[in-house]
């Protein structure tokens, strides 16, 4: 309960609060944004994918990159957990394996921001039913 004394106060409050509801706005047009899916099944969680996901979300926020991060079920690449699928608009979806905080940082800086392919891409070995 903070009294808003002038327009500047209002704008400041909005900026502070915006992150809380931004998630709901972003989900409205996911195909124009970078979509990141972090596998979150049992063996993924055991390999630390929750920490990876939290790291990715925080870093994207800090670097002001608009992206939608969701968790999915088992993608099948259990030997390479934690796995992350990255869909940059206009490009093919790519799956990365062994994504810890360091690897996530690389992916964000080099692939998402720079467009350069990074090591550790897992080649797709199955087709999804809606493709």
């Amino acid at each position, binding site marked *: *309960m*903070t*009294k*808003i*004394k*002038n*327009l500047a*106060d*209002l*704008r400041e*409050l*909005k900026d502070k*609060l*915006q*992150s*809380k*509801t*931004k*998630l*709901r*706005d*972003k*989900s*409205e047009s*996911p195909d124009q944004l970078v979509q990141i899916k972090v*596998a*979150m*099944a*049992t063996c993924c969680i055991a390999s630390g994918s929750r920490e990876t*996901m*939290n790291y990715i*979300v*925080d870093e994207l*926020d800090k670097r002001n990159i608009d992206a*939608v*991060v*969701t*968790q*999915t*079920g088992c993608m099948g690449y259990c030997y390479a957990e934690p796995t992350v699928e990255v869909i940059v608009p206009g490009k093919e979806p790519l799956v990365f394996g062994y994504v810890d905080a360091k690897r996530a940082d690389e992916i964000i800086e080099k692939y998402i921001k720079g467009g350069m392919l990074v090591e550790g891409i897992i080649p797709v070995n199955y087709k999804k039913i809606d493709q």
Partner: protein
Amino acid sequence: MADYKIHLLVCGGTGCKSSESQILAEHLRSSIENQGLSDFAQVVGTGCFGFCEKGPIVKIIPDNTFYTQVKPEDAKEIVEEHIVKGRKVSRLLYKDPKSDKIVSDSKGMEFYKKQVRIALRNCGVIDPENIEEYIARDGYASLGKVLTTLTPEATIEIIKKSGIRGRGGAGFPTGLKWEITRQSPGKEKYVVCNADEGDPGAFMDRSILEGDPHSVIEAMAINGYCTGASNGLVYIRAEYPLAIERLKKAIEQAREYGLLGERILGTDFSFDINLRYGAGAFVCGEETALIHSMEGGRGEPTMKPPFPSVKGYLGKPTNVNNVETFASIPVIINKGYEWYSSIGTEKSKGTKVFALAGKVNNVGLIEVPMGITLREVIFEIGGGIKNGKKFKGVQIGGPSGGCLTYKHLDVPIDYESLIAAGAMMGSGGMIIMDEDDCMVDVAKYFLDFTVDESCGKCTPCRVGNKRMHELLNNITKGNGTKDDIDRLLNLGNVIKDTSLCMLGQSAPNPVLSIIENFREEYEAHIQEKKCPSGVCKALMVYEIVPENCVGCTACARACPVGAITGERKEVHRIDPALCIKCGACMDRCKFNAVIVN
């Protein structure tokens, strides 16, 4: 790291609330706590999603999963499967009735594809009881912009140029009304929000007040700045307890945060809002009757001119606008009049909220751009007619509107086109009818309502509508005569020309438009004494088919009035004089021997 990664939006509109959505939200919260995810996932109770047919609705952000008909017992499974393991609960996902396929992302739903949610922009997205969520989505930014950078005249120009027209039903240019109120002499002026919403089956205003009350508060403050009023009043019907509660909370929070009260946002502008409650009279939705009701008098309309903008509440200039009109104002200021006027048709700009009811698959609340056709609304957004039945008609505008048929399906929805087709926009109630609805009965139903709600002040409405009602009653009972149709037409036109207010003037509309579009049904009732849809009880005759009757006496025992006679193993007979057409005999008969003619 205080930001939640997953939001579970639970619909908290009255419809879903009565289906235990609040209990569901509680169960979701405790399941999340049990799993230790209280910092990760947030459960938010929002306003109405509009998809009322399939409520309670739960929407998971950011993957946009849309769960329908969720019960409190499902909460544990949703949390364990979807939130923890990332697996969607497929039995709760929405299934498209036409393709029979599961649509797991709400963006792919026919219901939402063609909607443009402007007045409903926050409904189903934010928690209406938390002003901070409203502020996070540009709330009160328009008020700030107006108070610090625009003059009242400049703001009114924006509203005028946007082309927005009153959404209460009359469609009067909103900007012009604000201008007239501003130009009316006097230091004491009032802003009134008409939240009476009397049309049966309409719940557009209710959903906006329950789901996004701050948008109305902000707009009223903007209006006060423009017209020179420092007092706002919301006239809300007492039958909306949830909307009243949320509005009260919102006003309190706005006061706490300094967005209502003295010297708002550091300027000289002071504005506050109070509530006034209706007491169940449809006529109090008419602005002059509403004003008299607030003054403590009987809700009776008075002659216009003078218009309320010149002489209204307590004799002072008063700007009366509908809830939905107000809800769109902040967005127009924020995004500009060019953006708003790019939506819609030449004379009808922007969007309109409709309450889809009746025999459609997707009953609920929608917001569509003006100019969309009836066909798109009923068959695409509405999902077509329930149970595969045939479309018969659509009533637009409630008890003041007219009934359109399949011939009008390609009529664009805008003020002028609907009037040309014989209906009217009204406040947004749309009731769809199929082959099993009797149109004469529908006309009688609407007239029932308006006769009840007539204030009685002027003779044409008080006496005329009552006589029309009697004529219709006789027709449905099989006592109509061949002059009745002409009598109805004559009477109806006289009432339209001579009644004091729009209640009386529009009460004959349903009757007249149904005669125009469904004359054959009237004639069947009058000349053949038959109801083609099998609705008018008095015209139905229950008979026993002698060939099928085995004389088991089951029907005679089921009959509550002893209208069936017959010996065991002999053909039974129904006495039409005693029969009350309850249908109990038909239900009991195992030999298909009872039929209705």
